[in-house]
């Protein structure tokens, strides 16, 4: 066993198999055919999203079918073209190819989901671990804070955070030292990530706190303390490794929910700003085009289907991870 392996676990089982609980979980995960299929699907989707902009490069474009070679934000005269040979997913109000916009949007949505999850992970784990480890009065105060935040509608927090950060940004822009447009766009992204992460850390904090609370008086933790380990070292080396499984499982559920939340924010116009688009803002601009004369169904169905497929794959992987880390699971 290497030194990073958890210092405790289902002791008799891991002794019998000479594998740590994390390794055994990983082995169970690989045996789950549905999970591996979804993981492969997810990986190939991500690869496709990442490689898509390359297809419009002049060196590659002549060798590919014309439907694949549109640049994401290139405007053309072909407005509202239904899906066909030239435009596989059709075009939007500005004659932009929807397929390349969907790929770009999915890339942004996934990025937002991952970074937002990372933010919520850091806040949630730190908050929960500190509350659980300190216990007593600190625990009570910190968890009552979580209770209070839980009882408020999260959308108001997000709006307050994002509008505050954007207003600060505008103030900077009116000052003597102007930022470049790219920098402003990045700062807006960061405001969005921060806002999303800041409202989704509550369940994580509760879960981690519960786990830490049940671990902190176990014999191996006391042993570490007797050997003179500091608080930080005990948390990092003895307690948190035992919580990893729960954290990973919870993370895979957080990514889809943050992607959903971002699509909601983009729908409100608070998320990704044009000309960039996420899946949510694509769906939003599609539903603006609903009218009783012409039905532009492709503007909603394709981004919606891409969102659904991505979320489905994420959910399958998440379910399989949860089964794999279930302490009652058997090999």
């Amino acid at each position: 066993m290497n030194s990073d392996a958890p210092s405790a676990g289902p002791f008799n089982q891991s002794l019998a198999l000479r594998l740590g609980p994390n390794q055994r979980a990983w082995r169970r995960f690989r045996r789950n055919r549905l999970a591996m299929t979804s993981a492969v699907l997810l990986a190939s989707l991500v690869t496709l999203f990442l490689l898509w902009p390359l297809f419009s490069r002049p060196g590659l474009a002549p060798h590919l079918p014309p439907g694949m070679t549109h640049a994401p934000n290139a405007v053309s005269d072909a407005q509202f073209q239904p899906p066909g040979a030239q435009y596989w997913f059709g075009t939007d109000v500005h004659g932009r190819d929807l397929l390349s916009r969907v790929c770009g949007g999915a890339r942004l949505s996934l990025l937002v989901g991952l970074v937002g999850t990372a933010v919520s992970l850091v806040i949630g784990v730190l908050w929960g671990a500190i509350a659980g480890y300190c216990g007593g009065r600190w625990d009570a105060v910190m968890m009552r804070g979580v209770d209070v935040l839980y009882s408020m509608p999260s959308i108001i927090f997000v709006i307050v955070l994002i509008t505050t950060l954007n207003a600060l940004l505008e103030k900077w822009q009116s000052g003597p030292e102007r930022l470049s447009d790219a920098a402003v766009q990045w700062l807006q992204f960061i405001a969005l990530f921060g806002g999303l992460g800041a409202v989704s850390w509550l369940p994580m904090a509760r879960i981690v706190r519960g786990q830490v609370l049940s671990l902190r008086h176990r014999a191996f933790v006391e042993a570490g303390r007797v050997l003179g380990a500091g608080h930080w070292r005990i948390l990092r080396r003895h307690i948190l490794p035992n919580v990893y499984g729960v954290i990973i499982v919870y993370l895979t559920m957080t990514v889809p929910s943050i992607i959903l939340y971002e699509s909601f924010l983009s729908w409100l116009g608070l998320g990704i700003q044009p000309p960039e688009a996420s899946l949510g803002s694509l769906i939003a601009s599609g539903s603006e085009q609903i009218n009783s004369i012409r039905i532009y169904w492709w503007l909603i169905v394709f981004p919606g289907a891409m969102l659904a497929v991505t979320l489905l794959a994420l959910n399958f992987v998440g379910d399989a991870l949860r089964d794999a880390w279930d302490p009652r699971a058997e090999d």
Partner: protein
Amino acid sequence: MYFVKRILFLIPLLLVISFLAFALVRAVPGGPFDRDRKPASPEIERNLRAKYHLDEPLWQQYLRYLGGILHGDFGPSLKYRDHSVSDVIGQGLPVSLTLGAAAFCFALGVGIPLGFFTAARRGRWQDYAGSLAALVVICVPGLVIGPILVMLFAIKLHWFPVALWGSPWHAILPTLTLGLYFSGRIARLMREGMLDTLQAEFITAARAKGLGEIAVLVKHAFPIAVLPVLSYSGPMLADLLTGSFIVENLFQIPGIGVFMVNSSLDRDYTMVVGLVLLYAALLLVLNLAVDFAYSALDPRVKYE
């Protein structure tokens, strides 16, 4: 005794929540009078701020607000200045309550039987088909399914009205849009609860004494297996009853879900605090009710 304590604890909790919301919306740059039809001159804005006591220190404003609440007055809306917050909520809330309750019944009515059925048929094709359906519904959010339903059933087939609120006929598409996601969540919770419960020893005992499979599932497993659904129902109902921005916006329904978003965008301070208080009170009371129902349903649960 335990529940009396919990109820008394709601009061300080609501006070903290109201103060937090009160301070939070005022911390956002900009004010409620920025978005008026034309920018107010400094004197007019100063007068407006004075009229609504926005020029006082924060704690004084808050105490004034609390004093108003004691008389049942949640203050005037700063955006719709001829209306009080109570007026706006009083007009929109019945609509949101009706729609939310319909979606809640739909979610439970579809989710519980689906979850029960898939668990009873575990590992067979019915299980895979039902579980996949529940997952797909979770992955297609309202902002996708809503427009698709409108395009298909309202514009193309003319079965239902496109938007607005009035007859039960108008309520069907919004109810589906709002309830489908939750029915999927409920089905998954129900299935998991059943699978967990069916491994318990009292189920083995019930089978050992020769009970039929249906009696085991319905009479012995179901009351315990439905508990996760019950604890999810509290927050879910609070979310549903306070309205959904997406559904109300898409179908032009005059509920309060739209105000929840727009009031915080408009810095309509009093409206935000009123809505936050409404949501929090609803959520806390529902969670309390869930815990109460828990102790009634599960004989193993005892509260100190």
